[in-house]
Each structure stands twice: as C-alpha cells, then as structure tokens.
C-alpha cells in the first residue's frame, strides 16, 4: 500500500480518496468496454450476455467495410486539420493580438459549439445542398452554371465537422496561449524577428502541448462524429463508420457484433495517435508558466488588425450568421421548394413545434444533465488530471489510457456498451436521467482530462515544489498555488462538459427512455420524421434556448464572482 501511494501526498485520507476516485473512474469506463468486447466476439443472438457463441468472424468481416473505414479516416483527418488550423488562427488573433473588441469576439467564437454539429449540419444542408441550396441558388441567380457547393461531398462533411467541432480546438489552444509566458515572444521581437516568424517559431512551439492535445482530441472526436455524417453523408450515399454502425444497429436482427468490431478497429487508430502525441510531449519541456511574474500582453499588429478582425468575423459569418439565417428562413416556409421565389411563408411550423410538447421536457432534462455532470465531473476530473500528470502513483499512465477509451471508440458504440452494461445490472436506472448522467460523465472524461492536461503540463512543477519547500501543506499548496494557476483550464473544462452534455447525441440516442428524453436525439427524430421546415423551427427553438441558457449562466457567474471579489 505504501508503495502504491508513493508520490501521493502523505495525507492518508487524501491519498486513499484519490486511489478510490481512480479505481472508480477506471471501472465505470472498463465496465461497458467488457460488453463491447464481448459483443464484438458474439456470433450468436445479438445483445445476449454472456454470448452463446464466440468467434472472430465479426473482425474478419471488417474486410467488407474497408471503404467505410477509409472514408472515416479521410474525413476525420481533413476535418481535424481544418479545425486545428481555424482554432489556432482564431486563438492567436483573439489572445495575442490587439484587434478591437477581442473579449466580446472571444465569447462569440463559442457560439458554433453551442449550435451543435447537428443543427450546423441541418443549416448547411439548407445553404449548400446541390441544386436547391441557398448559396447555389444565388450562384445560379448571377448566371453561374452547375453547383458551386456540394455539402454532401466528403469535403462538405469535413467542413461542417470542422466548423462545429472546431471550437474545442479553439478553447483548448486559447487556454494554452493565455497561460503562456510572453517574455519569450518579446525576446524574439527584440532580436528582430517579424510578427509572423515569432508566431510560428516561438508562439507555436510554446503552445505545442495545447495544439497537440487539441489535435489528438479533435481527431478522436471526428472519428466518432455522427451528426454531420448522418445529416449530410446519407443523402450523398457517403458512409463513415458511425453511419454504417447506425444502419447496422437499427435493423432487426441488429448487427451489434459488426458495430462493436468496427468501433474497436477505430480504437487501434486512436492508440497510435495518442502514443505519438505522448512521445512528442515527453521529448520537450513545455513548462511555460514559471515563477516569473508576467501578464500575457497582446502584440500590436498595426494595420494588420483589420484583416485579422475580418478573419474572426468571417468565421462567425460562416459558422453562425449564415446557418442561423438559413434555418430561420426555412422555418418560416410552408415547404422547402426548389426555387426560393416560389416560397410560401407561414408561422405554422413554430406552432406545431411548440404544440407537440416533446421538446420542452427534453430541453429541461438536457439542462439538468449539463449542469450536474459539469459541476460534479470537473472536480473529479481535476483530481484525476493531477494524479496522472503530477503524482508518481504507479500505473498512472495505464489509467490514462483506460480513461481515454471512451474517446477512442465511436460514441455510438460506446453508447451501446453503456446500454448493455447498465441495463444488465439489477439497479433500475435504465430509462432515468441517472443513467444518462453516468453515461455523460463516462464519455466526457477524456474531454475534461485533455482540456485540463493542456494547462497542467504548462504549470512548472517548481511552483508547487516551492510552496511545499516553504512549508505549505498539500491542501494549502493546492488551494493557493495549483488551483489558481489551473483556473483557466478548470473553467474551460466546465464549459466544455456543460455544452457537450447539453448537445450529446451518440450515447443518448440508445440510452434515453420515454421519461428521459434529451434534446439532440429529439431533434434527430424530428429531422428523420418531420419536414425540414418543422425541423428547422425546432432547431431554431433549440438554438435560442441554448443561447439564452448560456447567457443566463454567464450573467449569474459574473455576478457571483463579482460579489465574491467585493
């Protein structure tokens, strides 16, 4: 026991508590994994545990899905590159330059994430569908031939995924940039390097852990992304692993074995990516928050601030203004027509959306889950991050791999694993919000860990050691040194987990029951079985509600922190 707790603070209770948290989290991740692995080997009746007949046939049949796997890797890689580039450029513009209205713009950057990939994909289908997409209609109107855009093509899918998942990259990278020691940039400038050269040679390497963290995380997210591929891929007959899994699990008898095997095959791709990223991180010393006093100061970019401002607003235009505008227009149409000039406008879609009564409860449930999962999850994840990156506890690296597992398998497959795992225990939580809460915590462990890890790695160990040398207890050191330094990471993790929970789709779609409906599957259902006008009205109501909730949350948070400071 003593050996096990080596490196953990000598507080017996705290150490035991940490060990407990670690074991608990590892088991809630591993428990559904056992079911996924069992099902991938099951060639008997699907969904029966323990399986009656075992074989590797499901893995062998992956050879028939090579096309789907290639599609997935291509789209995920393309989307990740786009998302990280967009995230890096925007983070640099908004945290390191002096463009006007930075603080407000930074808030606006989060809007696409609140909009969700599902709503984003629905909106871009209205904007850039071949033949009747609004942008293509404008193009035809000015005499253009053929279609300018085809959002159903792989590039279109990657574009939508990048726009609406990309905010994660932005949040992660800008958290790293905010915590960066600017004196290194200043030295570079003093020695005559240009602004671009400084950004590429100094800023980029300094925030490399954040960027790398974001890349790995976003890549995994894209591999398992479902909504955009579902809304845009199916009309284009372009299938990725998640949409193929969806089709496989929705028919009867369901091909659960194939779905589980496909999901696990993506795990291999993720292990490779994660290992590479860990090797890179180990190579360099990335501590940029040191004992020296500094305050990140923006660089004066002179006249370049206007084009940079345009870039930031350009992103808002394509990710918020155009999509919201398109949905708004569609939501007032009687039916979506090939020609905009033929449109008949009505408010009946809103009347129907409000009167069906299924959305209200789903909104409330999603908000309850978002608030509770983020508030309970963040402290737990904080402890986990500290154990993994700061303590000497043996086996902590393997624990990190275990906790990252939910990110490495498509959410749909992990969702099935959670379903089988929790429906097969004698505690009656299936069909309740409790199950969704546990599921969200499990699947968002990697999101929280990645977000906080980027910041933890940057805090120089010497600051904590200094506190301990000066006689501070571990608790006192955490309260006065570690936690304040980690605050940007903690805030980012809370917000990301809150929003990720509110918009969660892949796991919820299998886990929600009649009494525990949540919003994204409700919208998907509306989209699947209601007209695009009605779905647009529902999406507009969702977007407005989420925006209102976020504004309310920020207002309350600001008042609360303001009151405390006073």
């Amino acid at each position, binding site marked *: 026991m003593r050996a096990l707790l080596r490196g953990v603070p000598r507080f017996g209770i705290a150490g035991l508590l940490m060990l407990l948290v670690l074991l608990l989290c590892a088991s809630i991740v591993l428990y559904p994994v056992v079911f996924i692995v069992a099902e991938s080997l099951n060639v008997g009746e699907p*969904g*029966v545990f323990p399986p009656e007949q075992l074989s590797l046939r499901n893995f062998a049949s992956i050879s*028939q*899905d090579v096309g*789907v796997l290639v599609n997935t890797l291509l789209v995920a890689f393309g989307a990740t590159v786009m998302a990280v580039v967009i995230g890096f450029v925007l983070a640099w513009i908004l945290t390191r330059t002096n463009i006007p209205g930075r603080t407000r713009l930074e808030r606006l950057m989060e809007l696409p994430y609140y909009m969700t990939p599902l709503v984003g994909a629905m909106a871009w289908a209205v904007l850039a*569908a*071949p*033949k*009747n997409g609004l942008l293509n209609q404008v193009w035809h109107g000015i005499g253009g031939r053929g279609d300018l855009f085809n959002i159903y093509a792989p590039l279109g899918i990657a574009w939508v995924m990048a726009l609406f998942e990309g905010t994660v990259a932005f949040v992660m990278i800008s958290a790293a940039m905010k915590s960066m020691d600017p004196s290194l940039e200043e030295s570079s400038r003093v020695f005559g390097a240009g602004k671009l050269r400084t950004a590429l040679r100094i800023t980029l390497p300094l925030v490399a852990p954040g960027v790398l963290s974001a890349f790995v995380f976003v890549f995994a997210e894209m591999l398992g992304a479902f909504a955009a591929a579902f809304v845009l891929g*199916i*009309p*284009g*007959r372009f*299938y990725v692993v998640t*949409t*193929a899994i969806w*089709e496989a*699990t*929705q*028919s*009867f*008898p*369901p*091909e659960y074995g194939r779905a589980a095997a496909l999901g696990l095959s993506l795990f291999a791709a993720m292990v490779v990516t994660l290992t590479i990223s860990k090797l890179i991180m180990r190579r360099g010393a990335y501590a940029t928050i040191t004992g020296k006093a500094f305050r990140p100061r923006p660089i004066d970019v002179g006249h370049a601030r206007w084009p940079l401002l345009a870039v930031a607003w350009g992103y808002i235009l394509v990710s918020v203004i155009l999509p919201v505008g398109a949905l708004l227009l569609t939501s007032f149409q*009687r*039916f*979506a*027509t*090939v020609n905009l000039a033929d449109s*008949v406008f009505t408010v009946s879609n809103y009347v*129907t959306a409000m*009167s*069906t*009564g*299924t959305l209200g409860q789903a909104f409330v449930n999603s908000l309850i889950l978002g608030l509770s999962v983020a508030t309970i999850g963040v402290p737990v994840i904080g402890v986990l991050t500290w154990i993994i990156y700061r303590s000497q506890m043996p086996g902590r690296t393997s624990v990190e791999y275990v906790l990252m597992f939910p990110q490495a398998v498509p959410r749909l497959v992990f969702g099935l694993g959670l*379903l*089988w795992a929790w*429906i*097969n225990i004698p505690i*009656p939580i*299936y*069909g309740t919000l409790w199950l969704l809460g546990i599921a969200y915590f499990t699947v968002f462990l990697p999101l929280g860990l990645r977000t906080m890890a980027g910041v933890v790695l940057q805090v120089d160990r010497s600051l904590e050691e200094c506190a301990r040398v000066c006689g501070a207890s571990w608790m006192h050191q955490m309260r006065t040194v570690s936690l304040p330094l980690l605050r940007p990471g903690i805030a980012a993790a809370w917000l990301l987990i809150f929003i990720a929970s509110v918009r969660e789709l892949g796991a919820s779609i299998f886990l929600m*029951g*009649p*009494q525990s409906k949540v919003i994204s599957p409700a919208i998907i*259902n*509306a989209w*699947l*079985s*209601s*007209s*695009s006008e*009605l779905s647009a009205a529902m999406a507009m109501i969702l977007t407005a509600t989420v925006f209102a909730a976020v504004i309310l949350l920020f207002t309350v948070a600001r008042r609360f922190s303001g009151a405390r400071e006073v």
Partner: protein
Amino acid sequence: MNRSGLSKAAVLAVCMMISPLLGGDASAADAVCAKPRQMDGFKTCADVDKAEQEGALVLYSPDPEEGSAKLMNAFHQAFPKINTNFIRLQTGALYQKLMTERRAKSYQVDVLQLTDMGFVLDFQKRGGYVQYVSPEMDGYKADNMSTPKGYWTWSSYIMAGLAYNSNLVKPEDAPKSWKDALDPKWSGVINAKTVTSGLQHVAWYELQKLYGDEYFDKLAALQPRGFDSYVQQFDRMISGQDQIAFTAQYSAYLLAKAKGAPVAFVFPTEGLATTPGVMGIVADAPHPNAAQLFMDWFLSETGQKAYDAIMSLNSPRIGAPPPPGGLPLDQVKLLYPTDWQAFLETRPEFAKVWAKVTGTR
C-alpha cells in the same frame, strides 16, 4: 393478392403458433367483459379510475414524431389526468430496442405499434403481448385481429407506390409500374427507405417474387438514397433534390398534396406494397389500465377518425371512410406476403440486399 388473403394467412400463422399454448376454449378467452362502460364516443372494459390513478401512458410507435405527438395529445385531451409519452423509432429499430429492454426485464412501454407483421408474430410468440378484448374490436374483421382476439389489432393499412415531383417530371415521362422505376433516367434522382422499414421489406419481398434478384441489381445501379422516413423522402423530392420516390407512402402523398406541394402519385400496375400498422398492449406494462383505456379509445370510431386525420392512413375499421382525398381500400390493388413467418425469415437476406441498394456497404 387481395386483402382478405393477407389477413387469413396472418391468422393461420398465428393459430399455428399459439394453439399449443392455449389448450382451453378460445371463445371464452375472446369474450368482452360483461358490462362495458359507455364513454364519450367509445365503450371500455378498462377501470377508468385506476387508469387515471396510474396517470401516464407510454406508446412506442414508428409513426413520425409529429403524428405520435398529435395522437398522444388527442388522448390526453380526452383524459387530462393521464399524461402521455412516446418513443418514435423506425419499426426495426423500435423492435430491437424493445427486445433489449425486455431481455433486461426493464418495462417502459404500455402500448406498442409495429408496422411489420413478422415482428408482431415474433413478439406474440415470445409472450410479449397481453390479451385485452376491447368492446371496440367488434368494429373490426376477425382477420384483422389476433386469434384469439385481444393480443393485437390492425389499426391502419400503410400502402406504398411511386411518387414524383410534378414540376420536374412530366406525367407522360413518369413511371407507370415498379418495373418502369428501373429506367436509367432515374439514376441519382431516386430515393427509397432504409433497411429498418417494414414497408420497404414488404416491397422488396413482393418485387423479388415478381422479378427476382435481378430487379435489385438494376435498382442498385440507379444509386438510390435510403432514408429513415417517408418525410425525408418527400422532402427531398418536393425540394427537387430527388425526382422520384421509390416505396413512396400513399398517406405521405396525401399529406404533401394537402399542403399544396408539387407532387404526383403513381399506383404501379403490379399493385401497392402494403403493410399493416398493428397495435397491442404489452405484457408487464407499467400502466396496464391506461393502456386498456387507450386501446378502446384508439380502436373506436372517434380514435380512428382522430388518427386518420393526423396520419392520412386508411383505417381497417368496418365502414371507416378513406382519408381526406384518398381512395378507399376496395379501389386499390394491394401487394403483401401470404406467409408472414416466411417473410420474417427473409429479413437478413433483405438487409444484405438493401445495404447494397442504398450503398451502406
């Protein structure tokens, strides 16, 4: 094949399956309660007080979200003390969800609607339905109900043919038969349903009997896009992204036409692919009395009228009028399986073929 042929085959299959389980006198089990209570527009054997005490009703149905929501609202308005809820999934997915829940002894649902007789018979064989002989079942033909009656009852005829965008396709160019739908000119502008649809399974089953596997090789060459519900099929066709819909639901056409959409329907010369909507009370339902009350209301003239107004489907209730603007059942030629058990067994084969047709594999 005619309608009664379909129903008789179903009844025969059911009798064969469940007769060993019955043992006793089937007619006694078929009896309605001694004194049905007259409600507003329907009769019931349910204990209304208990139903209201239960205070909730949960429906699982493949009907579009909007349709199920409206149906549940209509029942809730009739019984404001009973809150309603539903889960909407395509029939294959719904049955699979139900099976997962029941295997784990998790009982969430009271009333179940399925649109695939194969699943209905399978569920009955597994003891999934509970028997309740509604006084309103007198309004239905024996071959539209389980034997003995009370396990499930047909609640609609869901029929599908072909439909096209009348702005983009001239009537003389439109297909007249299922075979015409294979014309290469429809390549890339045709859509269909996904593998989860019971109706799509019926269409495949019947067309395979008529034209063999070759039909689907040719269909696959047209690269049809597969969609989960008729709403998406019609949405894309009306918006001009596709020109024709394969396995286009007649009710969807009636609803779209009523909205003024540019859409026309083709009754293929071979007949309309048809599957019934089947409603029954689930065993171990959390709200059994509310479920009985709902069945009575739903099967009554009042309930069927409300349902048909929402869904534009043809009701199997004797004497029920066709949906607004629609043809009555005796004026259309229907295609459906004669042996539902054999039909159920073809599902894996259908899934394989349909994955190729819609390009999922």
